């Protein structure tokens, strides 16, 4: 098991700070979802958690240790990342793409061990891509492609997975497919999952823990029922809404209103 936390994190681009003294602890073995309006810094936070960005101040701690002090390959054996719009190298097959995830477990000597082969096989099965494994990635549909990327992260075999908007540009069916897959990874394999999602209602349905970001700080966090209320949504998104209970899943359901209504 692996814990991930941010400790008084300040960072940004150029001279503009995006995150300001942000502290956050992510619950182990759960699905955490970062939500917030555009430009609030949730993607930046995810990148910082994945060590893609260097903090100006503060630190990200993985298993209690500064993530930047540890060898990046060792980190990659604990934490995998799916960026927002990943681009596959041209002409690569699904199996090869998934195999890339094994890099942190390989060395110059051992470039394709039996463990590697097993992990790739399992990742393909788990994501339902075993039939498509010899196809080239660019021939896949959007949903299949996203599953291939997730399979790569699965093959990396890490207790922690970070995903930046894994459902963007997918239609509703494929959004559900991807989220169901992540839930099964969490329930069956005990993986800690941290992701950014745009759709508040899907976030509520699938998250164990919601982190609402506003202006570079953690505005609220906790169970969806506790975080997603009418007042909070107004503070986070500057949007009037009503929050009711989803009649089927009993999670909060946010119904947005226009400016004039409500």
């Amino acid at each position, binding site marked *: 098991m692996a814990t991930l936390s941010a400790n008084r994190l300040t960072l940004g681009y150029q001279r503009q700070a995006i995150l300001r003294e942000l502290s956050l602890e992510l619950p182990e073995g759960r699905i955490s979802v970062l939500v917030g309006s555009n430009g609030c810094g949730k993607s930046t936070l995810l*990148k910082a958690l*994945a*060590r*893609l960005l*260097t903090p100006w101040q503060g630190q990200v701690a993985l298993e209690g240790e500064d993530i930047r002090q540890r060898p*990046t*390959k*060792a*980190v*990659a*054996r604990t934490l*995998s*990342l*799916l*960026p927002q719009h*990943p*681009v596959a*190298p*041209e*002409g*690569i*097959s699904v*199996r*090869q793409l998934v195999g*890339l*995830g094994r*890099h*942190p477990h*390989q060395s*110059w*000597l*051992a*470039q*394709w*061990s*039996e463990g*590697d*082969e097993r992990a790739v096989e399992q990742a393909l099965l788990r994501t339902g891509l075993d039939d498509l494994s*010899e196809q080239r990635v660019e021939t896949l549909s959007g949903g299949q492609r996203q599953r291939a990327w997730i399979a790569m*992260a699965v093959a*990396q075999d890490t207790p922690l997975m970070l995903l930046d908007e894994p459902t963007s540009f997918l239609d509703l069916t494929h959004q559900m497919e991807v989220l169901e897959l992540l839930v099964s990874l969490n329930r069956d394999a005990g993986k800690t999952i941290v992701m950014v999602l745009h759709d508040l209602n899907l976030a509520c349905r699938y998250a164990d823990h919601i982190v609402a970001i506003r202006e570079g700080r953690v505005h609220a966090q906790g169970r969806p029922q506790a975080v997603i209320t009418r007042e909070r949504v107004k503070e986070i998104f500057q949007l009037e809404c009503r929050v009711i209970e989803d009649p089927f899943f009993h999670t909060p359901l946010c119904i947005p209103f226009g400016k004039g209504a409500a």
Partner: protein
Amino acid sequence: MGEARVLRLGRLSRVVVWRAWRRVAVALLVALLILLASLALGEAALSAPQWLAALRSPGSGAGLILWQLRLPRTLLGALVGAALALSGWLLQQVMRNPLASPDTLGVTAGAATLAVGYLVFLAADVGSAWMPLAAALGALLAVLLVMLAAWRGGTTPLRLVLMGIGLSTLLSAVTTFVLVSSPLTTTLSAYVWLTGSVYGGNWSDVGWLAACFGVALVALMPLVRLALLAPLDDGLAVGIGVRVQWTRTLLILLAAGLAGIAVAWGGAMAFVGLVAPHVARRLLRQPGAAQIAMAIVVGASMTMAADLAGRLLFPPLDLPAGLFVAAIGAPFFLGLMMKQAR
């Protein structure tokens, strides 16, 4: 993965794609044929028995031609092509763009500036023996400058290429200025060098270049895996534990070193570095060690063939190989661009 086989021996494990290596072997055979043709053909025409006799007695007149003129020159050409092709392959991986080449990073321009400067200002006093050193130094300096200029808490392929083009233009202007203000004969020999030629290559050149190339190959060994991952997004690469900036810097320096030594001994044969990796990719679609080997073999064959063509096609003239490299490369390149534009 077709005929991929996994070799495992204790902790050691490798994936070997036999079919790919078979193709490399065929390409190598073709390269050897070109080498033999290059030994056999030339101004002094020899019959087959004469040729065999000459091959066996290096001391005879014909033997001298073979062993001291044709062989070192051909080998030099092969090494130059091989180094440029490898350099181009590496850069196309690192820059994530099939149009990148040693030219793009200012390697050729840097080498040309110092080499022409040496030719104009120093050659009269110290002789031309040190010119390869000047060229290699220029190549390396230019790339270092480009990396420095593009560094802002790390580099990106786009910034590297733009800086490379900016610096290249600047350096070409300086070279032009030096050429304009120097006597015409010097200018002309500078142009022959700029076109790229292995004319007059001798065994000591071959030895030096082979040694440098060997060192570069050894240095590449542990980097091959990383070079294959270079086309990945920075985010993805970091995610699977690649030290992106460190890898990129190492690979670029290696590529620059390779191009630098190639240009130092063979002049600016611009197109080998651009075209040979393409041909290799065409022959072997799957990226991997075999593709690297293929690029090297193709590069070597291209320069050897170009050198041979330069010697044979217009008999009294011994034209620089760079000319034919361009002549082969141009249509290929244009075709590629047309295809990409669609």
